[in-house]
């Protein structure tokens, strides 16, 4: 079975500081990994995805993530956050079942 664990439910950070949102997955087969963002009262938006190739993936809004197979991780990073990055972030995985399964979500709270 596949599963996703987001290690932090809330991450408070000051504006212009770097941030890392952690995500670990479990799967017995190759995986495809995604990060989605959900702004308050809005729908889901894809930030970035790892399907194959380079393990460092760049996405929209200055975010990037690195696929680490040995550590079964796919942490999301941004070198300098803005107030507008305040949102809920979801890590998700497609594994052997072919279904997209979500982690519990991490609330990023950017403070001025």
């Amino acid at each position, binding site marked *: 079975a596949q599963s996703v664990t987001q290690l932090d439910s809330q991450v408070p950070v000051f504006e212009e500081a770097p941030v890392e949102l952690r995500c670990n997955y479990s799967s017995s087969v190759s995986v*495809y990994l995604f990060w989605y963002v959900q702004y308050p009262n809005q*729908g*889901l938006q894809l930030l970035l995805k790892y399907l194959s190739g380079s393990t460092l993936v760049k996405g929209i809004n200055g975010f990037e993530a690195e696929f680490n197979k040995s550590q079964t991780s796919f942490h999301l990073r941004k070198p300098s956050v803005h107030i507008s990055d305040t949102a809920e972030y979801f890590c998700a995985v*497609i594994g052997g079942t*072919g*279904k*997209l399964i*979500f982690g*519990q*979500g991490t609330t990023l709270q950017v403070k001025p």
Partner: protein
Amino acid sequence: SAVISQKPSRDICQRGTSLTIQCQVDSQVTMMFWYRQQPGQSLTLIATANQGSEATYESGFVIDKFPISRPNLTFSTLTVSNMSPEDSSIYLCSARDRVAGEQFFGPGTRLTVL
């Protein structure tokens, strides 16, 4: 990419009634799914909508409560039956064309059950 629309966008319903949510994709897609997002929670997969056959439900979800139809490659419906306040959630339609590909989401249907 695929653009997904849902109707209605929101509804307030009485306990014991049923609501059918419609999902339309602007292109033919192989896979369609229905998710639920309870208040303050993550997304939980309800079922995979199979074209021309019965949906495949996840653990904890049953066909009598959440009947699903998918008559063609661009359209699906989810019915929430015999509703209770615990069914108050956002219901999202989703589609993907390949196993290794981006999965698109509709804007969601915000359901409140009184």
